């Protein structure tokens, strides 16, 4: 008998096809991802063994307490898991898994896109074109800043941060980083480590955020941090909106202390602070760092693999804790 699954989020046709083939699955039919009450009801009615979901499903302590006893594994199709109360799941004996590794390259690509678009004013230019471009642009007008050869600071040098560093080196950028601990040389690849985040900032023409969310990193990039960056620096965030004090960021963008920012994540999603939409020197994207067909398939497959492993009494591939 196939294991029973609730697929609580909309996903690619390839992932849906595999879920149907390998599981007795209830598939979210949309138009939106399941809410917590919907997912709980589906799991209860279906006596589900596992739930596959995304960061649209906030599995708080209360939500986890409400799940039926049949559920043995919760697999989020994301690398971040700040939407899950992992301790509560663990206390109930429910394994939680994520999908690290499969979205690093795609997310690092997106970060470099935002960096280039912010520095080179790509989206602002696109707006000029769509408004008709019927005026001469002087040789000194609408200039961006060069990326090649500059210094980039990376906050959080995990897999995605390191994938981003590889791309930055293709632009001859000098790579600096801050993380909880220094990497071994084979992962550091010549990047300069700063144990003190604030000590790194004066050397960063660009700052790219790749650290996890959660209370430990909340508002790490605040007014003080932004004031330590050189005049005219560019900020990129494809990690979590919670890392940034958005009031301070808005002020720095308005005053011109920051040249530009490229943001894929926001403190409140999708109801992000609309004051950003009034600024020309930001590039905005709707949390699509991992949004390629290839990567979304890989994430969904990885989540299914995790569920299959746990339900077959094998170790999870990507457990969020190890006993």
């Amino acid at each position, binding site marked *: 008998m196939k294991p029973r699954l609730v697929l609580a989020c*909309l996903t*690619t046709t390839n*992932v849906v096809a595999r879920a149907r083939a390998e599981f007795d699955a209830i598939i979210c039919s949309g138009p*939106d*991802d399941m809410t917590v009450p919907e997912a709980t009801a589906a799991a209860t009615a279906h006596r589900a063994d596992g739930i596959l979901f*995304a960061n*649209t499903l906030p599995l708080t302590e209360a939500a986890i307490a409400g799940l039926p006893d049949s559920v043995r594994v919760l697999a989020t199709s994301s690398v971040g898991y700040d939407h899950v109360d992992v301790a509560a799941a663990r206390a109930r004996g429910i394994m939680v898994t994520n999908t690290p590794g499969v979205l690093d390259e*795609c997310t*690092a*690509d*997106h970060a470099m*896109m935002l960096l*280039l*678009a912010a*520095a*080179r*004013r*790509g*989206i602002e*230019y*696109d707006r*000029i*074109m*769509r408004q*008709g*471009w*019927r005026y001469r*642009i*002087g*040789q*000194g007008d*609408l*200039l*961006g*800043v*060069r*990326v090649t*050869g500059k210094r980039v600071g990376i906050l959080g040098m995990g897999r995605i941060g390191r994938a981003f560093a*590889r*791309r930055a*080196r*293709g*632009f001859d950028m000098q790579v600096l980083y801050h993380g909880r601990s220094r990497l071994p040389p084979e992962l550091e690849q010549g990047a300069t480590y700063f144990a003190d985040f604030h000590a790194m900032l004066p050397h960063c023409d660009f700052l790219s955020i790749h650290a996890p969310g959660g209370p430990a990193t909340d508002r790490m990039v605040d007014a003080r941090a932004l004031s330590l960056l050189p005049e005219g620096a560019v900020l990129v965030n494809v990690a979590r909106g919670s890392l940034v004090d958005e009031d301070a960021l808005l002020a720095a963008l308005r005053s011109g202390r920051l040249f530009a920012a490229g943001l894929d994540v926001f403190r409140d*999603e*999708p109801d992000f602070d*609309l004051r950003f*939409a009034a600024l020309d020197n930001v*590039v*905005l*994207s*709707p*949390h*699509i760092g991992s*949004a*390629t*067909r*290839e*990567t*979304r398939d890989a*994430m969904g497959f990885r989540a299914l693999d995790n569920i299959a492993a746990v339900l077959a009494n094998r170790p999870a591939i990507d457990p969020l804790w190890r006993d």
Partner: protein
Amino acid sequence: MAKPVLFVTRRLPPSIEAQAARDFSARLTPSDVPIADVLAGAAGADAILCCPGDAMDAALIAALPDSVKVIGTFSVGYDHVDLDAARSRGIRVCNTPDVLSVATAECAMLLILAAARRAGEGERMVRSGAWQGWAPTQLLGTQVSGRRLGIFGMGRIGRELARMARGFEMEVHYRDVARLPPELEHDAIFHDNDDSFLPMCEVLSLNAPGGAGTRHWLTGGRIAKLPRGAVVVNAARGSLVDDQALVAALREGHVAAAGLDVYNNEPHLDPAYLGLENVVLLPHLGSATRETRDAMGRIVLAGIAAVLAGQAPRNLVG
């Protein structure tokens, strides 16, 4: 000795205007001027600093005062200056070679990423307040890293782009008239014909010069040989592209997305592009960084000064 007189046809970056005012008796222009004013501005000038878009044609050059000894253009291209007419009057011409390569390659890489990752569409949705929330299937783009990149025209800009693309672990193929020596080629794969080249191009970047030899090179026939879902970018010259064919392929989906910085008939580009969501459009600003424009200004001012001092600078053309 009095400083030589330099007439500048356009507003330039502030640091370059400052340098011009320091080294020359500079006639700066606070805004863009109609080309009819060039003769008035050039009266008694030793040198003219012009820009792309200023048509320095045979008639205009014939009418220049005898005092003019050198024309500098704030660009690498000089198809707007009639070199024969200048030569016949003994006027030297200099430009801004080399210093645009990196900025233009950055622009091409930006276009590749922005087109493949649907940056324009995502931006418009978020900025308009229409974002309904995250979904695994929303705005799915094409992954860039690890793909095959085809570069049509492997000059300085093409090679800079290849270097950037290696950071994305892209396999680089290139098409050009001749194969590069190994120290310039690195691990890029040379193609001596379109039929072997085009099917390799999951991403195609045009980096060849304009002119008759490459006019409308990207035809419907060549587009059909690209893999389905390819991404096409052009930061070189608009004349390389048959717009009708590219628009048709973008509508049909054979080309998934395009990123364009240059157009046929600028600034009056084919309006069909403006109605497409799967294009990212830039107003010919491939070299538009402060650093690059400053470098362009320095090199062209140095060239003008050298000519007036009786020297032959490296950036003379023709």
